[in-house]
């Protein structure tokens, strides 16, 4: 069902955990639909220097969370924001059709974390 790449990220997820002093935190999904992703980021000079995730969800949800942390790290916020759910699926060598919609939310979680960071810094700046 899943590609080797998905299974690799599922069995050895990268960057699992939380960042205690994160600059931004994003969360998407809800327990009703069965997938919750939470992403923590550290940002320095507009670049994502650290990123961690925790996910409640199926194999696809865990793998997409894991792979987006690899895709995002080292990128500027603008670059990171441009990562699409589709790009995440491609990085995993594809997802089963049924999983494309319900479990492919990692890009949204990252965007939400970046938004949170911007909100935090805007508040600080004001």
């Amino acid at each position, binding site marked *: 069902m*899943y590609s080797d790449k998905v*299974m690799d990220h*599922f*069995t050895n*997820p990268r960057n*699992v955990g939380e960042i205690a002093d994160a600059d931004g935190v994003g*969360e998407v999904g809800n*327990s*009703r*639909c*069965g*997938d*919750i*992703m*939470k992403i923590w980021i550290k940002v320095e000079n507009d670049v994502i220097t650290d990123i961690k995730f*925790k*996910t*409640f*969800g*199926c*194999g*696809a*949800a*865990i793998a997409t969370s894991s792979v987006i942390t690899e895709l995002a790290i080292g990128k500027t916020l603008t670059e990171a924001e441009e990562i699409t759910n589709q790009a995440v699926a491609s990085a995993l060598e594809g997802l089963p059709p*049924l*999983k494309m919609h*319900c*479990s492919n939310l990692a890009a949204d979680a990252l965007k939400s974390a970046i938004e949170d960071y911007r909100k935090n810094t805007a508040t600080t700046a004001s």
Partner: protein
Amino acid sequence: MGQIYMDHAATTAVRREVAEAMKPFFTSKFGNSSSVYDLGREARRGLDQARDKIFKLLGAERAEEIIFTSGGSEANNLAIKGVAWAYANKGKHIITSSIEHPAVLDTANWLTQFGFELTVLPVDEYGLVDSQKVASALRPDTILVSIMHANNEIGTIQPISEIGKIVRQHGALFHTDAVQTAGSLDLDVDELNVDLLSISAHKFYGPKGVGALYVRRGVRLEPLIHGGAQEKRRRAGTENVAGIVGMATALELAQTERKVESARLTKLRDKLIKGLQIIPDTKVNGDLENRLSNNVNVCFKYIEGESLLLNLDLKGIAASSGSACTSGSLDPSHVLLAMGLSHEIAHGSLRLTLGRENTEADVDYLLEVVPEIVERLRAMSPLYQ
């Protein structure tokens, strides 16, 4: 690493004796059972003998009360639509329960667009239907009540005989989906007080794509599949003779071995339940008394079912979950939700259903592996603190 199959409620392997019994009907005895010549008569004999075996094993009165179908879903559809269309003049009210298989629920729901009215009875936290609730739901225009014998997810066995008595006294017809029990419980249609009963061969070591519907003598039934004169004009189509012979053989073996095997599985089941309960934040689902001897169903809070199954698969264990992610829908098991579980908890369910090949060593291996996996997934879960 060996493979451990613990998903016998999903399907089972065709056992050797069954495969042997089927073989000649593919090749040498391949005739069409409707034909007059020798080859056709051989097929007819195979069919007749299978029907005889099955009607007797179900405690039915006559062979003609058995209609062969392509499985449990068709049998359920035939029972419900067949009775609905045949008795629409008499009334249009149907009663069922919230934990039925989709082949019952969706079928009954489909009929509502034709003016049929549906009462879906709730269940209690153990998944039990209350026979008093059935009694109160019966109306003068109730033509059919359909309550499953035992649930495929949680293994809860319903008080069918009691419900049947109430329904039949009222003058309505009573159907039970016995797909999960045909291989493991005594199925006497008179003791169960049922008018219609569905079975499916692949749940008791027979082939996939074959089932049967018991229809008590005198009950009218509109066909689901119209056409040729097979099955006394109640189900058209050239009969799957090999499959039917396989089903009869499988049912006979299962019923013969039923008591001994049930006792063996009950022991394994209870050891498994006890062992899994030790894991913190674990909930056992279903009724612990009125329960199929092979069913274990638990929820591990804070984790999701499919990721659990994938990890089990990596350890060589085949199991199942009521998680939405395994079914491709958004909502998790309608059965667990009907019992009052929250979405979050229902997503973390694990069903282990034991069978012929499982040993105590399998149970021990499971009890070794599951706690580690649960712990690992919880460490990854944003819900777990």
